[in-house]
């Protein structure tokens, strides 16, 4: 396929991909999906949260994990940015700090896939910015 320049090109590419694999289940099962929130306030962005979020979005898809990646505000852990909150189905949210690409990879492989806690957890008595006010 040549360069994608317009919406028509975009749709054409979609249709090509669809033809290849239309069996893929896209509907998200709320019982069974992982929620990932990347803290994206000034502190997070400055510490590299954009790359971390891109990594999670890309790798969840590549490793075939059902999940939703969203962004959240500052949780007050600026010293530990980038921070990521992971909620496994039926479990309490866990916040990891100092998340670089290596730790993000461990989070997916160890915590998300196997439920095994890894280094870098920020203790639980926090509130997200959304739960305040």
């Amino acid at each position, binding site marked *: 396929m040549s360069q994608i320049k317009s919406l028509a090109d*975009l749709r054409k590419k979609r249709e090509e991909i669809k033809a290849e694999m239309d069996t893929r289940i896209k509907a998200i099962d709320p019982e069974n999906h992982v929620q990932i929130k990347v803290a994206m306030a000034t502190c997070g962005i400055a510490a590299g949260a954009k790359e971390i979020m891109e990594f999670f979005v890309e790798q969840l898809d590549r490793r075939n994990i059902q999940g939703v990646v969203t*962004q959240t505000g500052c949780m007050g852990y600026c010293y530990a940015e980038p921070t990521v909150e992971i909620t496994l189905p039926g479990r309490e949210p866990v916040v990891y700090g100092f998340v670089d690409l290596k730790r993000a990879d461990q989070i997916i492989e160890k915590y998300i896939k196997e439920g095994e806690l890894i280094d870098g957890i920020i203790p639980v008595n926090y509130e997200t910015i959304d739960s305040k006010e």
Partner: protein
Amino acid sequence: MITLALNILDIVQNSISAMATEIAVEVTESAAVDLMKITVKDNGRGMSQDLLSRVTDPFVTTRKTRRIGLGIPLLKYHANLAGGDLEIQSGEGIGTTLSATLKLQHPDRQPLGDLAGMMTILMTANPGIDFLYTHKTDMGEYCFSSREVMEYLGITDFSDVSLLTDIREMMNNNLEDIGASGFNGE
């Protein structure tokens, strides 16, 4: 913040917290008049005149986790550093428009950075918000609307990773065409 795109990403978070449903980002660069202008316009809840007058102060914030807010002061700093300034217009119930001007050729002007990546991140994380992106150069203009893409493709969110990659490519190709400096993360 090492690029202007990251600064914009941060400024847009303010619009998101202000419950905006439409956020327009516009970047203009003109070598002819040595100007770069970045505008973020939203239809969020806006600010009171009192807050507006204090908002470039780093010790002013609406959040409650802590008492500092650095997004706007940082962009203002980077604009000042590059021979420009920052201006905000806002009205309660109307929305907020923030524009930063910088001298395009100024040695201390930050690189634009990954504009397409910034937009796709925002679109993935906020499927309920319409994002509009406009980039103008001396050679032309490129407009992108997330709602237009959704309607055209008949989708309701941007969870499909291969689509995001394609959208990034599409934006970068178009930015390259008009000679923009912020494509492919440069």
